[in-house]
């Protein structure tokens, strides 16, 4: 018994003054994913990667906005969203104090992005920023002026119309037999 008391003497105080002093976490700590709205393009890669469905990306009721939503209560801090995000809009932070007082909606974070409507059929299909981002990527890809224009014309139409447009473009509107 006395030996144990000696050990206490030897190592002194083991506790910290937390929460009155900050608790330092390791450099690569996996804390709450931090969302930077300005960088988000609404590509929904994080929503697909998220194994626990903490992140969802869907249109709101009147389809005027594409809503990115993160429910911290479901998050398991695996960091898959961080891995797949092309623009670095979501990064694991060092934040670990996640308790909320009674109000669970405080755990939810939301980002609303402007919807892009299809120029052909007027159907909403993605966020405006994703189109902008895609165009920027294309402009940096060292394409010829004509080729770029052609690609850009496809950007503003929804996948269904894109499919139709491609077919029309290839066949010039005539029915053909493919051999």
């Amino acid at each position: 018994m006395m030996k144990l008391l000696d050990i206490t003497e030897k190592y002194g105080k083991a506790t910290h003054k937390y929460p009155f002093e900050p608790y330092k976490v390791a450099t690569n700590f996996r804390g709450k994913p931090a969302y930077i709205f300005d960088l988000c393009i609404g590509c929904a890669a994080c929503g697909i990667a998220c194994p626990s469905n903490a992140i969802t990306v869907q249109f709101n009721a009147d389809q005027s906005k594409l809503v990115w939503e993160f429910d911290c209560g479901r998050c398991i801090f695996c960091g898959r969203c961080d891995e797949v995000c092309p623009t670095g809009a979501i990064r694991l932070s060092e934040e670990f104090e996640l308790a909320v007082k009674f109000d669970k909606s405080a755990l939810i974070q939301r980002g609303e992005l402007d919807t892009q409507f299809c120029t052909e059929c007027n159907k909403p299909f993605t966020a405006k920023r994703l189109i902008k981002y895609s165009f920027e990527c294309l402009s940096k890809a060292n394409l010829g002026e004509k080729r770029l224009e052609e690609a850009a014309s496809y950007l503003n139409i929804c996948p269904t119309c894109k499919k139709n447009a491609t077919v029309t473009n290839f066949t010039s509107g005539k029915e053909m037999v493919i051999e």
Partner: protein
Amino acid sequence: MKCDKFIEALGARVKILEVTRQYEDQVTALVGLSDLPEAVRFLYYDMGGYLSTMVANDERSINKNYALYYALSMEGGKMFEGDEIAQDEKCFVTVKVLVSPENLTYPSVTPLVPACVWYEREAYDMFGLIADGLPDKRRLVLSDDWPEDLFPLRKDAMDYRYRPDMKEHYNEPEYEFLRPEGSGIIDVPLGPLHVTADEPGHFRLFCDGDIIVDADYRLFYQHRGMEKLAENRMNYDQMGYLAERVCGICGYAHAIACIEAAEKAINLEIPARAQAIRIICSEIERLHSHLLNIGLACEVTGNYTAFMHIFRIREYSMKLAELVTGGRKTYGNVVMGGLRRDITGVEIKESLRILKIIETQVEEVWDAVMDDKRQIKRWKGVGVLDKQVARDFSAVGPNIRGSGIKRDTRYDHPYDFFKQIEFDIAVVEGGDVFAREMVRYLELKSSVSIIRQCFELMPQTAIIVDPTFHVKPENFALAYVEAPRGENVHWIMQGSAQKVFRWRCRAATYNNWPSLRFQFRGNTIADAALIVCSLDPCYSCTERVTVVDIKSKKSKILTNKDLKDFSKTLKNSPMKDLR
């Protein structure tokens, strides 16, 4: 090839209908229904096997039958010196039978091999398969008010989100406990709610005075149907994360067992560096789990000073986990084909520094605890697990190693990086709480050395293989990991569309529970909490206990504090004013 020797011997005994090989050390033999008990008994007792897991499976969509797989780990009986199979012959032999959906009965193996009892009870709950001759036919997993004719794991039984209506508590059927004969025996219920609940569990202690004559228990209050959930909804990316949430302490061991089962089923070899890091993380887990248990074993007996010191050291192991994986728990790391996070040189250097601290301080505190005669007295001779009982019930982990049986998956079936690592297996004779805590202390030391060796030997390779693999439906395999509490066994049969067909997850303590009643017998109520604690299932700290004297019909409610105080001081017995 491995296993052939056992199949040959089995073939001489019973008629084998078909032999299939799943992995280099895993073979399945299909036998006839009437040969089942003899086949399992022969492999278990005559050839030196231990029951690793038993899986029931609804294979009506594959071969129009239900199937049972009794997976035996062939490693030798280990009851005396030399009673062990040569290291390169150890393997897994699975005995498979088909049960027809018309009569749903199969002959029970339990009368010959007691270790099967829980598995066969569970097979009834989940699939409605009736073990003919099973001595104990009560429910195991499902709650008492679960509908009689609903067997959740049958493929056509129910949607995974369906929850049957609960019965009002006064309509709930009574669960029958196995009471011993005799007069003057008092029921002492412990549980089902524990304050530190890893799991809630209800223990019914049958006492004569302060002495426990026998015990029975009802567990699975926390059964969540993870297996059903995984089959219906999860893909392999999500499953690993679900598996690690089976346990709050040894989650990492479950994650690698689950993922490795899927990897083994398609013969996927992962890079050496990923193997090493998997070992490092699971050993870190062992550090903090063992420190937790030794600390609690002190706390239950009232030695708060030692408890606080051990938890102070445990904090370093949590720091270590934070450093290596980015979270205080080692979660969210394992994926099929390898790992998601590498370790940097700086992290290794810092880890080695922390390991040094843990090593020296653990030794200091353990010395001090060993010096304390009163502490030792509370541990010695309490909760003895007889060697033969341990053999019969296939106990695992420190529980069986404390009874002098050298059984450790890391040594018997070296997985991942363990083939390249040297370490001592802690085996202590005695079978009491003291022996089990001693095993844990020795394992702390070997864990530290294993982590060091891994850091040293870890090659500079990628940590994940190119994930262009395809799962093959109906392939199955077994994966085994030595978690802090013993061997975790996961069995996976793959289905189509990147989903599992059947996932059987057997946590270590599942094999330790059935023998617990033998450990209770002859001990005092004050030691009950300690015995449960030394098994390391969770800490049996009850919210309140009702004590009823059958003779005088008097009853009394004890609070958590009363019971704890009595455990610590051994004074003011709560039974006093009842007698």
